[in-house]
């Protein structure tokens, strides 16, 4: 297998290895001629002489004019007493507490929305870099996150009461990065992914680790694998005895990667594969009673492109009784990144929509009982990995 640097150099050379012919004069002149004849409509310039246009642009303009007409018609109907606007969506009273998520604003940030249907505010601004993969502490007083500074990533913990962050892991040779941490149920251990520098001809590798906070000891609980095919997003079972994670692999001759959910004991050891590779499952999360795992199919950032239908599923930890809770049929809308609410009655997830290559992601709440879906955070178009805070005394 060729390494990253060689691949990059090959792509550079291949893309430069094209003639840099100028745009054909006739088509350039036709486009400029089209621009010369325009009309101004509501701040937009619309061409008038549609007949002389190339077909694609002509169709676009006709569609725009039809759209303007429809907007005017709808507005007129509303003014004439059309049915009133439906009331804003309500959220079932599934959980109390704040919602934690990652957002994008000139870089990745971590934000907290104080209640459902509110806007979030940034936290952990005292740490430089992109902030990713946020996770609540079991008592809801702290937040674990990854601070990524140009690939050199470390885990930090933010304390809600003080508003301050402190490093959880110190990553030095052979460690290259620590990512994707989650607390054990008693808060005394943290499972995470560590990237290790190349120790032999196999190059850098990644492994799951567990940090024992009282002693500061870090132990590897999985084999070192190539980071592109690594184990990801470790999540503790409610009794702390097992860890669920997902693994990505790329079989020889198959251009599309595969993914599956696995579990192992907290000390490592024998793995149990929960889902079949063909399901392409990822992002597992344990139900609060430990009787089910929620997961998604075709995790959002590992599977991009046409024909990936992402949905939220639940399955028993022994791999039986797999049920799809959402039924999105293709990649225009996808449901990924499930996290159970503390009371086990709902699952937050990321609903993404691909708009001509631009991805909008919104946090939603899925009721496990009736499968109703409601928005939970307002004021952002990039909200991912949302999770609900555990609050003492909450239902």
């Amino acid at each position, binding site marked *: 297998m060729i390494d990253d640097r060689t*691949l990059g150099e090959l792509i550079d050379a291949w893309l430069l290895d094209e*003639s840099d012919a100028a745009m054909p004069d006739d088509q350039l002149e036709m486009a400029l001629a089209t621009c010369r004849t325009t009309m101004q409509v509501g701040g937009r310039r619309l061409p008038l002489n549609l007949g002389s246009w190339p077909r694609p642009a002509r169709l676009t303009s006709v569609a725009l004019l039809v759209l303007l007409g429809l907007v005017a018609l709808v507005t007129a109907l509303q003014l004439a007493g059309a049915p009133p606007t439906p009331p804003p969506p309500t959220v079932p009273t599934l959980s109390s507490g704040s919602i934690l998520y990652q957002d994008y604003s000139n870089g990745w940030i971590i934000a907290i929305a104080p209640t459902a249907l509110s806007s979030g505010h940034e936290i952990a601004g005292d740490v430089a870099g992109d902030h990713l993969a946020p996770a609540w502490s079991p008592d809801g007083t702290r937040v674990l996150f990854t601070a990524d500074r140009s690939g050199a990533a470390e885990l930090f913990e933010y304390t809600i009461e003080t508003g301050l962050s402190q490093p959880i892991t110190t990553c030095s040779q052979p460690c290259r990065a620590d990512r994707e941490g989650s607390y054990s149920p008693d808060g005394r251990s943290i499972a995470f992914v560590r990237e290790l520098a190349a120790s032999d001809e196999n190059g850098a590798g990644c492994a799951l680790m567990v940090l024992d906070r009282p002693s500061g000891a870090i132990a590897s609980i999985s084999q070192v694998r190539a980071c592109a095919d690594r184990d990801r997003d470790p999540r503790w079972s409610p009794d702390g005895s097992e860890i669920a994670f997902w693994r990505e692999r790329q079989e020889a001759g198959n251009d599309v990667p595969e993914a599956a959910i696995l579990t192992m004991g907290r000390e490592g050891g024998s793995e149990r594969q929960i889902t079949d590779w063909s399901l392409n499952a990822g992002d597992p999360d344990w139900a609060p009673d430990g009787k089910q795992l929620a997961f998604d199919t075709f995790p959002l950032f590992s599977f*991009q492109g046409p024909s990936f239908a992402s949905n939220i599923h639940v399955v028993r930890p022994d791999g039986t009784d797999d049920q799809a809770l959402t039924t999105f049929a293709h990649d225009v809308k996808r449901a990924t990144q499930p996290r159970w609410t503390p009371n086990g009655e709902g699952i937050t997830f990321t609903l993404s929509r691909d708009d*001509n*290559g631009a991805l909008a992601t919104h946090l939603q709440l899925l009721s496990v009982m009736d499968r109703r879906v409601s928005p939970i955070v307002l004021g952002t178009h990039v909200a991912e990995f949302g999770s609900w805070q555990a609050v003492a005394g909450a239902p």
Partner: protein
Amino acid sequence: VVNADLVRLAARGDQVAFESLIRLHSGELYSVGVRILRDHDAAADAAQDAIVAIWQHLPELRDPDRFEGWAYRILVRSCVSESRRRRAAIANVIRLAPPPTTEMDIGIDVANRDALERGFRALDVAHRAVVVLHHYRGMTLREVGEVLGIPTGTAYSRLHYAHRQLRGAIDADMRSSSRPRMRQ
């Protein structure tokens, strides 16, 4: 007249300024379009659509200094549309003829070029655009994200996915080929 001045004048409706601006940038837009779509005719149509869209929407551009990235975003959208239009008539797409190569300036052999071409064509336009803007235009992933209106993380993951596809194509080619590969 600097670029930003041309942009301001064109945004106010100055046709001469707009045509000067487009003649400055049409070559770059076309080159990027060719690399994304892998077809000269399709790239010319996409660039044509992009030029008209640039004229239509130029009054909405707030910062003239960001014209180039903004124009690339419009071009990529035109490439997406052009790709969809041509998908039904795929048989008419003309494969790019490989240009003459020399030992001095090219570090890529025929087999790798074919594998990259095959792997690249299997990607959708959104992924191709990230590869071209990053590897050909030399943009950082943050810049790519800004141009395409996507988070840096999304740009990163698209590039990662594209690399996997391209690496897979090259590896598959290497495994299937038992004959020694010759430089062209």
